[in-house]
C-alpha cells in the first residue's frame, strides 16, 4: 500500500477500527502483515494514539500486553461501567495465590518444584490460578521427569495492569532487611 499519501491520523484511525473490531489483543506482527507498515512507525503511532486517548480522558483506552494491543474502558469511568454488570464484584485471591503468582511471574516461568522451593506446598493456589486463567502451561522443562512449566497467561497482564514481565519492580527492592544492612555496613553513606 502506498502510505505516503495517507495522513498519520488516518493510520491511527485504521488501527483503532481494527482494535475495536477484533476485541481481543492484536499483535504488532499482525498489524505489520496486514497494513505493510514499518514496525517502528507502527509502535510510534500506537504510542501517540495511546497518549492522546489518555490525555483526552477518552472512554476507551488501549492497553499494551507484551507485544500486543487491546482496547479497554478507561478506569476513570469504572464506577459507571460496572453498573452494567450487576454481578461484577471486585475479585480477590488468597494470599497463597498471590505469592504463587509472584513466583511464576518473577521467574517468567516456573515448575511446581520451583514454586515449592520458595513457599512450600502450593497445589491448591496453583490450581486456583489455572482455573482463573491467570496462569497457563508453557511446555515442559528439559530436566529429569520433564516437569510442566507454568507461565503467566494473557489474562494476568489484563487483571494486574502490567505490560510486560520486565516491567515488574525488581524483587530485590522488596528486601527491606538488606537496605538496613547496607546502611549499617556503610555508615558513610548516611
Amino acid at each position, binding site marked *: 500500500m502506498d502510505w505516503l499519501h495517507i495522513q498519520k491520523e488516518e493510520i491511527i484511525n485504521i488501527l483503532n477500527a481494527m482494535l475495536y473490531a477484533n*476485541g481481543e489483543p492484536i499483535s504488532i506482527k499482525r498489524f505489520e502483515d496486514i497494513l505493510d507498515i514499518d514496525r517502528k512507525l507502527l509502535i510510534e503511532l500506537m504510542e501517540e494514539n495511546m497518549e492522546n486517548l489518555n490525555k483526552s480522558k477518552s472512554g476507551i483506552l488501549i492497553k499494551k500486553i507484551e507485544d500486543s494491543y487491546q482496547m479497554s474502558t478507561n*478506569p476513570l469511568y469504572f464506577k459507571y461501567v460496572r453498573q452494567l*454488570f450487576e454481578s461484577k464484584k471486585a475479585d*480477590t485471591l488468597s494470599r497463597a495465590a*498471590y*505469592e504463587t503468582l*509472584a513466583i511464576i511471574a518473577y521467574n517468567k516461568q516456573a515448575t511446581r518444584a520451583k514454586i515449592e522451593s520458595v513457599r512450600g506446598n502450593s497445589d491448591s493456589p496453583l490450581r486456583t490460578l489455572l482455573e482463573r*486463567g491467570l496462569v497457563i502451561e508453557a511446555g515442559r522443562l528439559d530436566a529429569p521427569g520433564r516437569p510442566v512449566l507454568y507461565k503467566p497467561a494473557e489474562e494476568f497482564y489484563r487483571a494486574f495492569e502490567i505490560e510486560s514481565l520486565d516491567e515488574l519492580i525488581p*524483587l530485590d527492592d522488596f528486601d527491606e*532487611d538488606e537496605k538496613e544492612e547496607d546502611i549499617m555496613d556503610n555508615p558513610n553513606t548516611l
Partner: protein
Amino acid sequence: MGVGYQLKLENFEGPLDLLVHLIDVNKMSIYDVKISLITEQYLDYLMAMQELNMEIASDFLLIAATLLQIKSRSMLPKEKTETIDPEDQLLNQLIEYKKIKIAGERFKENHQVGQLRCFSFASVEDFGETEQTYILSKSHLIMMYRESIQRELDKKNVKAENIREIVKKEKVSLAHSIRKVIDVLFREKRISFFQQFKKNVTSPSVLVTDFLSILVLSAQKKALLKQKRPFEDILIEGTENLSYPENIHEIYDWE
C-alpha cells in the same frame, strides 16, 4: 511454656510464613537470625497447635527437624569439608520467601487496580441476570405455591407418558461415537468440534456422546484438545497413540 511473649494463633501460609513472622516479632534482621531463639519459639508454636488439636502439616515438622539439625550442628566443632550448610540453605530460603511475600502483597494491590478496566470480550460472561426484589403478600405466596405444584404435576404427566419414547431415543452408543471420531481423526489432522460435530447434529444426546468421546480419547492420550476460552470451539488433534479401541473394556474401564 514459661516464655515472655504472646503466641497468637494466626493462619500461617506455611512454616516459612511462621518463621518470617517470628523473626519480625523478635525484631531481627533476616540477615542476622538468632536460630536458637527462633527454634524455641517455633517449637512452642507447634506445641500450642497440638494442644488445640490442630493438625500439624508435615512441612511444619520438616522445618522443625531442620531447625533442630542446625542447632545440633552448632554445638559440634565445625568440619572443614562442609557440604551444604543447612543453616545457610534455610536462611536463603527465608530471604527469598520474604521478598515473594511482599511481592504478593503488591500483586494484590495491582489486582484491585487492574479490575477497573473492562475489556469488551471479557465482559460477556459477566452479564448476569440482575437481582430482583419481590414484595410478598400472603395471597401472592399461595399463588406461587399453587403454580409450582401445578408445574410439578405437568412435568410428571408428560414424562410418564413419554418415558418409553425417551428411552428408545436415547440409544446412542459411546463405542460407536468413539469409532466415528477416530475415523475422522485418521482422515484429517486437526478438526474443529463445532464444525465437525455441532453443526449438523441430529440430537442433543448424539452431541453429548460425541463430546464424551473426545474426552475419553483425550484421557487416553489418543487426542489433544485445545480450547482458547470457555464456550469457544474445541480443536481436536490425533496424537501418535491414536488407534481404534481393541475391546469394549478399553472404552469403559480406562483409568
